[in-house]
């Protein structure tokens, strides 16, 4: 496991980065964020529809960022990125899923239903 002092520029994960990739990722995130903000501030849809649309926007933005900015794929030289992805998915499901569950249970007991939620 001795650590060589080879040129870091030649590392495969560094080689994967390109100006065009970063720019594309940045642009997609920017456009989606602007679109979501515009839709929310202009009340383009009823509340529930709005929630759905901006959630989809967020999901696309996350995927774009994972692909273009973080270069996470399942190739051989990206094995550590894959490991972190595998670690991330259950954490994501736990934190978001359990939060959603506990708050839905809480709202059943404490909140009047928001208009448009059903």
């Amino acid at each position, binding site marked *: *496991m*001795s*650590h060589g*002092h080879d040129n870091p520029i030649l590392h495969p994960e560094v080689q994967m980065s390109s100006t065009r990739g970063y720019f594309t990722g940045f642009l997609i995130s920017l456009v989606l964020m602007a679109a979501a903000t515009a839709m929310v501030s202009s009340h383009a849809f009823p509340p529930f529809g709005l929630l759905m649309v901006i959630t989809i926007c967020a999901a696309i933005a996350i995927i774009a960022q994972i692909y273009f900015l973080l270069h996470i794929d399942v190739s051989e030289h990206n094995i*550590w990125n894959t490991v972190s992805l595998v*670690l*991330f998915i259950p*954490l994501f499901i*736990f*934190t978001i899923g*359990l*939060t959603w*569950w*506990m*708050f839905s*249970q*809480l709202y*059943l*007991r*404490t909140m009047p239903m928001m208009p448009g939620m059903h």
Partner: protein
Amino acid sequence: MLVQVPGGWNPLLGRLAIDQIPYTNPILAPLFVAVVIGAVIILGLITYYHKWGYLWKEWLTTVDHKKLGVMYIILGLVMLFRGFIDGLMIRTQQVWANGPQSSGVFGAVHGYLTPFHFGQVYSAHGLIMILLAATPLLVGFMNIIVPLQVGARDMAYPYLNALGLWITAAAVALIMISLFVGDFAHNGWFGYAPIFELQYSPGVGVDYWIWTLELTALGTTLGGINLIATIVKMRAPGMTWFRLPIFTWASLSANIIALTSFPALQVALFLVACDRYLGSHFFTAGFGGNLMLYTNLFWIWGHPEVYFVILPAFGMMSEIFPAFSEKPLFGYITMVAASFAIAGVSWLVWLHHFFTMGAGPDVNSFFSVATMLVGIPTGVKVFNWAFTMYRGRITYTAAMLWAIGALFLLLVGGLTGMMLAIPAINYMVHNSVFVIAHFHSMLLVIVYAIFGSVLFWFPKVFGFKLDEFWAKTMFWLFSAGSVLVFVPMYMLGFMGQTRRLDYVFNTAWHPYLVTEEIGIAVYCLSVAAFFVLLYVSIRDRVKNRVGQDAWGTSRSLEWLTHSPVPFYNFAVTPHVNARDELAWRRHNGINEAQPTQYVDIHMPNNTGVAIYIGALTFVLGFALTWRMWWLCLLSLVAIIALMIVRSWRGDPGYIITAAELEKMEREAMQRQQQVEGHLPHHGGQAVPGGAMAYEGQKVSPLGTPPSSGGDHH
């Protein structure tokens, strides 16, 4: 877009004004004078002895993981002291302000602290103890020990390591300056919505709290990345995963938790900052906000965080028990599995901090069961330690006493934790001092493990042992203090005393509160014993010098190099043959074997960039707290510029030639011979087949002078 703040604001100084300096406060004003005098004396002494150059070259700009670790530990010990003083103030207020007849001074109706000031004291106590005392102490130990245990020259990213330290130091500076400029938060260390909103906390206290937490979170995340990379990538040849020393395993599991959970804290606090600075409504009751969402987000980080601090402590105990039982650790594989099981379950239990929210029986049952599951891997660990000691040749050194003390505290804290995991019980004792006593038991496990580690690894880092008598005195005083403070606290919790009372109404509790105060006095004695310990040990340092294997029974790789550890750690990276490498070498008679030839070493250069960026992050935090927008922008731009400059220049490092290395090694070996008082025995003949001490080198005993060859440049 920015929120209008109550009180004055001007473009130059933001909210800062002369009336924000509490110069009329009867507690803070004298303290400020004392601090100024102390600072003048220290700075004067450094100047008088012409130590600035030394300080700058050897410490402030260093990227050496051992020196950074030592600075982390010093920082942690200073904050442990500050946090202890806060604890002393809390206990004194409660024993004083007990019952309607109790007197009051300094503007307080009862006791000596006004409720607002008392709120700041307990908030600072919690934040400091967890994030600015326990965390830096543990990160410091991981910094020093992990690279040595895996046989690396330094951390994977030495400069990032320095950056982590100085950002943590910036957080410490920020919370310390809140004593004398403005206020600190009064919302508890973890904060509550909506009290931290601007309407209810119009001062700067909450802002100090936000930015202190953000900075320490950033520093710890950077440290976590570094430690993970070091463990994964920097292991010595032969160091397979299941030969990793157990403390390194514990550090790995802890830092995976840190890396994945700290972002949740940063986001939660960033949203609080949005509420306070930009007028958003994430955690307000109206406009679509949700109060409990803050508590939820905070504890998504908060519970993994408590395992982030307990796991390295478990790792420390796992190193101390085998060394002083003269046996290998019992159940190594199960110990590793237990660490990762705890790390995994840590993500599933956070709701138990707010069982009383009202999420209903299904949710509470789920989190109750998940919380109880933690007891299984923890139980495995406790039994493993017990079996390690069973039929071992136990020496009751002070380090061993601290470790055994930690084991008992873990039983008390763990079993009360099991009680609290039951929602029905939790509803009865929620927010009572029973909970306080429980988590103090758990955090004292960490403190015990840390003091045990200080004693255990001190000779490795500094080359001489700490005085056993004073270390044991301190241990017994500290333990007596713990019992006197926390046993009555458990009782008071059952009697119904709630936490954070600035006035205790029930006079029937007075005997218990007095007992706790006596416990605090005993703690004070143990602090004094600690200072005596340091004084006596440094005075007798020549007498207490040690060789490479300070305890004679140590087991892992860090004990293979000289004490104190040379800045390049290992002259030649050792080849690892076994799980307990040093014990294996001792068994085979090659524990003092030295490399036969040296090769050049590539080392990183010192850099001042890390401390500049640390200082600038402090300025940024201070400017954000006081809303001096020009200064925020300036410091932020300066940080980014420094980052770019540094990454452009990079660090070519420098070379220690084999000849220089040989000279330094020879001196170190002579020192060791003086200490051990005997010529090392000849070894190297009876090495089992296939094993080697150093890659591609035959084993030679210590007596043979090594040669640098000359054909390998």
